[in-house]
């Protein structure tokens, strides 16, 4: 893109954000939901499609702006909390994919609890996140996205459902996460990625149980990560041996995610 066009787009966009901020001030709600849809080279009629889909939802207040680039849309949903915004995002994605062939939208959404939070800078950061979201998933934009320094957590878990859940939850809480599904990869990542905390199962492929805990101690080196074990193993001997070998916390499954959050927070501090 030539410099002139870049400048042109920038001013256009800042116009967009200003419009949005203006609208936020006009509506009476303190809580507001914002949604950005981006699709490289997408069809230009997406904005009107979005309007149509949102109109069909009874009792929903919304404002839609077409972005400068074709296929990019910004939506304001006054009064909606995060789960409601997310649900609308789901609806939009599903119905747009039904109507437009081969449509792979990149989405980012958020809900802000106070009007003051919504500034043009924040909105531009959010749209940037949408543009950089190359996964098929909808990105939930939270305060965690603004953090420059995040604690690192390595999630080691063989069960893909639990692994996915832990990654989503910890990401939303502002941690930077990586996952491993077996003991050997986990050990490699501890050496290469240097996490602050390792949240691990004991039942893994490759290497597991007490030998695995030993190895973590060995490769951890000076920057030993905290080790929190989250496992189905409830044999007392195993638990006490784990603590003897430097494990910081031991949580059995089934577990309460709220409790897990608290324990992780306590370990990281």
């Amino acid at each position: 893109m030539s410099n002139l066009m870049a400048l042109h787009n920038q001013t256009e966009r800042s116009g967009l954000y200003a419009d949005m901020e203006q609208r936020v001030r006009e509506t009476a709600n303190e809580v507001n939901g914002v949604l950005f849809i981006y699709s490289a080279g997408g069809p230009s009629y997406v904005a009107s499609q979005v309007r149509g889909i949102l109109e069909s939802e009874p009792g929903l207040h919304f404002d839609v702006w077409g972005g400068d680039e074709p296929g990019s849309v910004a939506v304001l949903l006054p009064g909606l909390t995060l789960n409601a915004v997310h649900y609308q995002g789901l609806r939009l994605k599903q119905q747009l994919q039904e109507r437009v062939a081969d449509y792979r939208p990149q989405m980012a959404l958020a809900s802000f609890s106070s009007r003051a939070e919504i500034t043009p800078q924040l909105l531009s950061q959010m749209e940037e996140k949408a543009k950089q979201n190359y996964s098929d998933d909808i990105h939930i934009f939270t305060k965690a996205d603004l953090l420059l320094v995040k604690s690192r957590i390595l999630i080691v878990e063989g069960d893909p459902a639990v692994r996915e859940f832990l990654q989503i939850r910890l990401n939303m809480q502002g941690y930077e996460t990586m996952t491993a599904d077996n003991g050997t990869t986990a050990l490699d990542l501890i050496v290469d990625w240097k996490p602050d905390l390792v949240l691990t199962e004991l039942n893994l492929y490759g290497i597991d149980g007490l030998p695995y805990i030993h190895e973590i101690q060995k490769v951890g080196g000076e920057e030993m990560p905290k080790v929190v074990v989250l496992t189905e193993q409830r044999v007392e001997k195993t638990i006490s041996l784990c603590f003897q070998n430097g494990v910081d916390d031991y949580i059995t499954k089934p577990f309460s995610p709220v409790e897990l959050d608290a324990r992780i927070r306590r370990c990281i501090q």
Partner: protein
Amino acid sequence: MAGQHLGLAIAFIYVCLGLIVIGMLLLFYMKIRHLRIQRKTNEYLRKHQDYFLFLQAHLGDTEELPLPPGKLSDLERRVIQQRVTEWIEQFKGDLQQNLIDLCYNAGFVREDLKLLDSLFYGRRIAAAYRLGGMRAAEAVPRLLAMLKHQKYSPLSIVLARSIAKSAEHEQQLRDMLIHLLRHGKPIHHLAADILMETRLDASRLLLQLLKEDNPDLVKVALAAMRGQEVPGEAAALGRFAFALERRETTA
């Protein structure tokens, strides 16, 4: 004479041929059907991936969890039910309760309760298993009746686990143990493991069972106390009983 024997042998051959043809047809039918269901299941899992992420992100919220937008086929509902049940198995507390409520509101529990009346045993057992996974308290009386009439088999264990997971009253757990142990098999350890899947308060339950007249129930309670976080003397009692047992069985 030889012709008679040969005739028998030839009849045998025809029977074999018939069985082979039927067998092959059955094989291909079953295989193709299975592959189709697998393919559709994977399709639905991909289709609802965003919805599953949505659920996992908002499990802790106070608002009710909705089903995905749009119309859902039967298999789609099953796929979603299965995924939600996987989470219910892993979690405790409020988040688990939100998922259980989702299953009720989505009608999954109602559908499986209806299947308990099915003519096919396979469907009844499958429904019983799913109801246990969803912690459906309303199903427990029906499940207890099924367990009562079940001949002792691995499926008694399946029913017992479903009851243990869903029971809301201690009396139901007690009944489950009685039905399970009435066949006279010394499965107290297995019964203890099943019992401990309950969401009810374990320590109070075990102390109550210790006071029972039925020796089977007492043995189950003692077995369950091993490795549980139960107040001091009770835990020690459990360990003592286990040590006694272990001495009896080691070579």
